[in-house]
């Protein structure tokens, strides 16, 4: 990748910088400057980098995406908003990278729980933010992180105190409404010791090209339980780069459900660092049609003994779509008795669809139980014949089996409204016609 594009972004930066939140904070200004320098030197990631070898992002260099100024709620189509906003949640809406108080619904949130825009948090709680921003990840990870650090316009800060079990999930709805807009957001989620929260990140946009670069940092306290859902339904023309970076304390549990459906080019990175006896579950489903390129990277770092990790990613790819899965599990020398299992299953529905999958186990401890499995293939002919012998015609049998394959991941969602919404999205985007809900 050339740095010519980076230079164009860097040239624009001085005019954008004064509009970014946290200008008065020396630590943040320094962080942003460091990030800008890194990004200017490197540009966007290149396929020559091992972590990006299957995903060429040069297509985003055709345009210069710029952050939006503040957005007014009146410009948002209510029906469209409602189609993504979940009932029975506290809902935070970010439009083109800016928090909208008007569209957000936070009534009845317990007083001890903080849910506020990143801009507000940087103004009101700068010291707290200093100890969380760029802690679970840093600018060296890859240049999109540096890019996000330098450019983020807003985002969200969630802080749940120790021992608090939040009764409803928090939904963070990222909406993009303008062509060529850059939505760069930073979200920080902090769960105190023994806290229990569920957060749903939803990404959607109007039918235009835009660049979404979102970074979420999660801190899971000792014995806390955090479940994070990501429903990525960006527009068919959009570019999405999202990263979730997690630090798990002792005995902490983190579960992630990643539904990657949208975007022309979409990449999601998930990284979790596990302490002693912490548990990490990563579930993913990607559906690719037409010429979509959907890339998911996960990295699980077992740093201390007795950690458990479970990972299952499934992909259904049709037309000329390409799915990428790179999963790394790293077991440090100190992480004895680690128990880890990683699986990636891909279903190719057309001859032109492609799946690239690369599971990696790096084990430096000697007393561990780790495994991985990968499949790329077509539907099982035995299953098709079985259904045919039960009166089901071949085409319907194929649809049923494909849908059932994907639905296993949808069924893991424990929040009813989200389950139904994701299922609706699967049915809308499903490559095959004639798929029925009643099969479930």
């Amino acid at each position, binding site marked *: 990748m050339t740095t010519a594009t980076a230079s164009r972004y860097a040239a624009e930066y001085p005019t954008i910088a004064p509009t970014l939140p946290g200008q008065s904070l020396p630590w943040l200004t320094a962080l942003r400057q460091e990030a800008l320098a890194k990004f200017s030197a490197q540009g966007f990631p290149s396929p020559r980098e091992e972590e990006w070898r299957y995903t060429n992002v040069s297509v985003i260099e055709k345009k210069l995406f710029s952050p939006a100024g503040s957005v007014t709620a009146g410009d948002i189509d209510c029906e469209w908003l409602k189609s993504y906003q979940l009932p029975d949640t506290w809902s935070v809406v970010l439009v083109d990278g800016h928090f909208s108080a008007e569209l957000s619904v936070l009534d009845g949130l317990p007083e001890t729980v903080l849910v506020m825009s990143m801009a507000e948090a940087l103004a009101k709680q700068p010291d707290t933010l200093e100890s969380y921003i760029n802690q679970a990840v840093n600018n060296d990870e890859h240049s999109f992180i540096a890019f996000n650090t330098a450019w983020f316009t807003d985002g969200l800060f969630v802080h749940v105190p120790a021992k608090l079990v939040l009764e409803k999930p928090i939904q963070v709805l990222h909406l993009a409404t303008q062509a060529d807009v850059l939505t760069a957001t930073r979200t920080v989620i902090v769960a105190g010791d023994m806290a229990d929260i569920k957060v749903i990140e939803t990404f959607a946009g109007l039918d235009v090209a835009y660049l979404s670069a979102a970074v979420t940092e999660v801190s899971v306290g000792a014995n806390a339980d955090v479940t994070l859902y990501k429903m990525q339904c960006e527009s068919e023309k959009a570019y999405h780069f999202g990263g979730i970076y997690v630090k798990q304390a002792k005995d902490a549990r983190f579960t992630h459900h990643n539904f990657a459906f949208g975007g022309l080019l979409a990449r999601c990175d998930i990284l979790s660092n596990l302490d002693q006896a912490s548990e990490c579950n990563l579930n993913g489903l990607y559906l690719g049609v037409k010429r979509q390129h959907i890339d998911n990277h996960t990295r699980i770092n077992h740093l201390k003994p007795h950690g458990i990790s479970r990972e299952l990613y499934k992909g259904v790819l049709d037309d000329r779509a390409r799915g990428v899965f790179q999963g790394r599990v790293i077991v440090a020398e100190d992480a004895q008795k680690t128990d880890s299992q990683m699986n990636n299953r891909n279903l190719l529905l057309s001859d032109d669809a492609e799946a690239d999958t690369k599971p990696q186990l790096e084990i430096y401890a000697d007393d561990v139980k780790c495994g991985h499995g990968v499949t790329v293939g077509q539907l099982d002919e035995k*299953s098709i014949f079985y259904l045919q*012998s039960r*009166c*089901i015609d071949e085409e319907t049998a194929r649809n049923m*089996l494909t849908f*059932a394959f994907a639905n*296993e991941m949808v069924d893991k969602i424990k929040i009813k409204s989200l389950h139904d919404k994701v299922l609706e999205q699967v049915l809308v985007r499903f490559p095959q016609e004639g798929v029925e809900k009643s*099969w479930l």
Partner: protein
Amino acid sequence: MLSIKNLTVNVNDKQILKGINLEIKPGEIHAIMGPNGSGKSTLSHILSGKAGYTVTGGSVTYQGKNLLEMPPEIRAREGVFLAFQYPVEIPGVSNIYLLKAALNSIRKYHGQPEVDAMDFLTLVKDKVRLLEMDEKFLYRAVNEGFSGGEKKRNEILQMAILEPKLCILDETDSGLDIDALKVVAEGVNSLRAVDRSFVMVTHYQRLLDYIKPDFVHVLAHGQIVKSGGAELALELEEKGYSWLEDSKAAA
């Protein structure tokens, strides 16, 4: 009901069935016995329409129609049912949904309206009791995580609900303990009717203790080498298959 005439079948250019002749009349139970590799399973697969076999000669006529021309789902809708030796697990598709979808496609095929939801549930629950199954099996994914015995019961449950005309049981007794075998046999016996025929493919005689066949055929090296009544099965139990294979070889 079913007329097989001089049927020859190849798998990968190797002849597996070498001229099978079999006449099955409505209401009859035929047992096809034979040693491993004799072509028993091939015969049941050919009748149900599984891909991977090439018919090189002969004919199979079912209720006056050329069975071999029909795709598997049409055979099933016409009333041919194969109870699998190894029922397939279908994660993500619930048992009860498959039953309903199958029943409705049969009804649609015969120009009948879809089954009423309440009537369907009553029918299913009756049959579940008949096969001494737990109702919760209905709501689980098809065969997923079922034990060997549960899978075989599930096959018979499907058969009981779909009410086929020609039931082909492929090694239904394999992997069943004696209690499960009795339940499965009772299920089959309850389905005996003047207009329903059975083909039971089996290696052992023990299933025939519970389901009494009208005819027993011995298949060896792709041909029926001997046919007789139920007593032939007992003779086979005593003497094994080798005397028949040998006599054939000598002839």
